[in-house]
């Protein structure tokens, strides 16, 4: 019996389907099916707190979302968030990778230290910074006060524009290590001969940096931009911990949670989730395509 099972399995198709079918069933049950469920909800008037009033609603949820001033301003806000975050992450990551690519004593220790922010759970990251930014006793206030930059403690997170930028900052702090590591991996794979060849051709430091270093980072740079755009658009945990549902930092991700699970409006929430989700899916497909491309790094 055992013999026949193992010989039945010793066939490429039998083995493959034995592995794949259970997995696919699992993914259908807990990923595709729920996604289709919420697509269905998005066409219903469906408030979880008023279950007797569920009825077909057509495209009205979508119209309501697109006419909702809170949603529209959250889209503007996250656009600002993505632009500032992506630019900053890429620049700082490039700087860190260039430094780590130099030879100096303690380099491997520093390389371990820079990944620490990335290891911290995002929600814990939000709480850590909420303490540092605290208006009554925070370290940021203490530091700026002692340096004489401010003369009295500030409630940073109560000032909308500052709160938004601080939310961006804590994302940048957590995400930069990941991109630095990607950049460093490519920098370390640049053959020394390329630099030597450029020197023979009479290229100065700046020209070598531009034509060799930056040129090698082109492909990974593109991937890093997409990854950071996706990640900064999707931030939820950090903002939830830092400022909760505050207007100042309300991105579509936060608002979507608030509408769906705080207000119980599953219909409108699902419609919003799909509107936002289509944008995210488009970005992710670009990423998957880019990273599948096999040609030169």
């Amino acid at each position, binding site marked *: 019996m055992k013999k026949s099972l193992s010989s039945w399995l010793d066939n490429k198709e039998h083995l493959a389907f034995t592995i794949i079918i259970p997995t696919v069933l699992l993914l259908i049950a*807990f990923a595709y099916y729920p996604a289709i469920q919420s697509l269905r*909800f998005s066409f219903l008037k469906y408030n979880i707190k008023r279950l007797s009033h569920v009825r077909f609603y057509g495209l009205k949820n979508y119209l309501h979302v697109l006419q909702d001033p809170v949603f529209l301003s959250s889209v503007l806000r996250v656009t600002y968030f993505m632009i500032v975050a992506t630019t900053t992450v890429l620049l700082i990551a490039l700087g860190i990778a260039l430094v780590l690519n130099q030879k100096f004593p303690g380099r491997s220790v520093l390389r371990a230290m820079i990944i620490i922010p990335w290891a911290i759970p995002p929600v814990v990251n939000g709480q850590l910074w909420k303490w540092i930014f605290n208006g009554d006793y925070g370290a940021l206030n203490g530091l700026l006060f002692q340096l004489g930059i401010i003369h009295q403690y500030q409630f940073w997170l109560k000032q909308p524009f500052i709160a938004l930028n601080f939310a961006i900052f804590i994302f940048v702090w957590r995400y930069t290590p990941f991109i630095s590591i990607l950049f460093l991996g490519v920098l370390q794979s640049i053959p020394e001969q390329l630099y030597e060849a450029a020197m023979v051709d009479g290229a100065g430091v700046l020209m070598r940096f531009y034509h060799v270093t930056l040129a090698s980072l082109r492909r990974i740079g593109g991937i890093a931009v997409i990854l950071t755009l996706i990640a900064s658009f999707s931030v939820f945990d950090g903002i939830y911990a830092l400022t909760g549902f505050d207007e100042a930092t309300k991105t579509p991700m936060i608002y979507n949670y608030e509408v769906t699970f705080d207000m119980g409006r599953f219909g409108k929430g699902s419609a919003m989730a799909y509107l936002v989700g289509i944008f995210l899916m488009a970005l992710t497909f670009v990423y998957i395509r880019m*990273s599948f491309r096999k040609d030169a790094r």
Partner: protein
Amino acid sequence: MKKNTGFRIFLFILVFLILFWSIAPPIWIVISSISTRAELYSKPPHWIPHNPTLQAYVNVLVKGEGFRGGGGVSAARLFRKGILNSIIISVTTTILVMSFAPLLGYAFSRLRFKGHEFFFYLIIAIIALPGWPVLIGLFSEFSTLGLLDTKIGLILLSFTFRLPFETWFMKGYFEAIPYEVEDAARIDGCTYVQALFKVSLQMVMPGLIAVSIISFLSTWNMFAAPLVLTYTLKSKPLTVTMTEFIGQYFVNWDLMSAATVIAIIPPVAIVIFFQKYIIRGLSAGAIK
């Protein structure tokens, strides 16, 4: 290349800045956690505590002091249950991923079968599936199936959403090892399964370690899903119980900072210890 002294000083300053940027915030939370309440709430802050104490750790781990906004649950119970739940959920997910991802990676890189492309994209497309649409549907599905507020529900969820990434990575790792090794094992009379376990799996071990660590970390760090899908201490992971130290109007910063330090020790220790694997895993993941 000869580097001059100016460059060395410049480099040294940059190294110092990078170090400060990366570790000053976590170090500050460690300092806060060993400060007395009086020092914690002093203006300007005591950068180095005059009377260091472990009281906050005792409160969070052992003594179980109640706190405002805790709803009658003691801080220690909230915290200990959270840690336990997080460990159970993360370890189980990691073991499941470790058992399935290599098989899937092997199937897609080595075996030719009908619908190869179709099934691969069916699995990979999950990566592009955005969070909220799935979570909203999952909330209603879980409440029908009785999986709301259970650890099993969270494990199923994190396993389902880790698997596509890890399958993709493992496929890449298998593709990087030569076919000849397995062919040799086949000639020696091994079945495909035996060849996989005896030969190929050994060769993709570094990849498997990377994949497992990344699965553990991302499950440990998970927050939005358990926030939606759990509501009692029976199944809330640490990330969710911790946010309860922060009330709307009152925050227990001493409990908070001790809890933060304990919560970041496992992931930070893992990252530092397995640094090489993680770096390789992250780079391999992003650029296949």
